[in-house]
């Protein structure tokens, strides 16, 4: 393609020399939303199954509660929004939260909902962890949350090795 063909648009109120709102010379974030490709969907499901934690057995446990083949020839950029729709009373304030990584807990127990991408699949994961300390036990709660999960598998690269949604402590 010649670099002199395409479409450009200036930001409203500016000229094309000042700032472009759109240029077809740029790559964009694109999702193939064609029906049947299953690269843009909303699913409704609970967050896996219960994980039993105990400070006498510290460590991290994971349950994959959904596997989606991405059918890309590369490891794609993936966007996942876990939206907590129906929440048991034991997790106060959780209803309506959404993020690509949902977290609850603290010391000595935590649990999270996150996603992982590898060469073939996107995985939704229920993760829970315990650190050692005075004898305490905990049964996870995320499996009792009804999530609405919107995911998008992009036509853009994500990484050349498996990656996961990232926890930001903020």
């Amino acid at each position: 393609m010649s670099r002199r063909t395409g479409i450009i648009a200036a930001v409203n109120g500016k000229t094309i020399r000042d700032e472009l709102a759109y240029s077809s010379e740029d790559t964009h974030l694109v999702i193939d939303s064609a029906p049947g490709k299953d690269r843009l969907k909303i699913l409704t499901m609970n967050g896996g199954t219960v994980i039993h934690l105990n400070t006498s057995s510290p460590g991290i446990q994971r349950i994959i509660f959904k596997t989606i083949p991405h059918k890309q020839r590369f490891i794609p950029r993936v966007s996942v929004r876990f939206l907590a729709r129906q929440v048991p009373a034991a997790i106060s304030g959780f209803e309506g939260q959404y993020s690509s990584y949902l977290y609850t807990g603290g010391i000595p127990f935590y649990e999270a909902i996150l996603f992982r991408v590898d060469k073939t699949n996107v995985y939704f994961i229920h993760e829970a962890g315990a650190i050692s300390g005075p004898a305490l036990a905990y049964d996870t709660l995320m499996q009792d949350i009804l999530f609405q999960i919107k995911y998008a598998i992009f036509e853009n690269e994500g990484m050349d090795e498996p990656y996961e949604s990232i926890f930001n402590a903020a």
Partner: protein
Amino acid sequence: MENGRYGAVFSQQGIPIQRANDYQKAMDSRWKFLNIHVERYIDVTFNMTGHTTGWKRLKVYGHTLPYAPAFEVILSSMSVSSDAFLTDPGKMSGNLRSFPDGIHYTFFWDSGFNTNTVRIKGFLRVFKLDLREIYKAPSSVLTTAKPQPNARYGAKFLDPNRGGTNINDNTPRSYSLYTPAKQISMHMHGTIKAVAGVVNLVHEVGYPPSYMLCSAYSKSESAVPSALQDDELEFGPLFESYAKAKATADTILFQGVQTSLGTRRFGYVILKDPVEIIG
């Protein structure tokens, strides 16, 4: 021009343009899209021999833009931020940060670390986006049009940044604009400081929107103030998982996950992509 009088709108293929909601547009010249400046794998190793203890700033990528651009990055498990890389796990804290002169790894180096190298490996995507500018697009139609089965019209423009493509390709990846596909446009962007531990944005897009958030630092807030002029900001990478969000059709509230956001400064991008609606 005070107000642009001309423009172009492309709805996604099969969507009647008169009834297309914002998120059903493949292109609308009234608002801004996430134009990508560069996306590439990075793998840079720095020799830290002789460096004294203190904050360091190592350039990973020179972006050539005249401001500190918004960016996202996925770091490899091989990178220095991974505990597995260091024999002093957790002692090195840092992240990629955007400055006007490039994307840098900014971190606190201790000459007592059991390593002489810092390796940054990952995938970097830099947007042509200056988050210092406050932007809010107009909202238009608040209904959702159903796709029509016999879509006859559309548009496609090849992406000149991808080699080996031609106009007969039927994969969206070959194109910069391709109306059968969904493209990500922005509703708002800018910077904001948390108040009493929360960030509350009035977006008025008509539905709970998708978002990206990043840390932002002024010269007085930066760990390396000498790298910034008074009117410049330093940005961390955009994340879709930063803080926890709750939204209505008009507002979005960000709160800390483990700690209060205090009065920290953030860069934000509110997308026109709704979190509860497919399309």
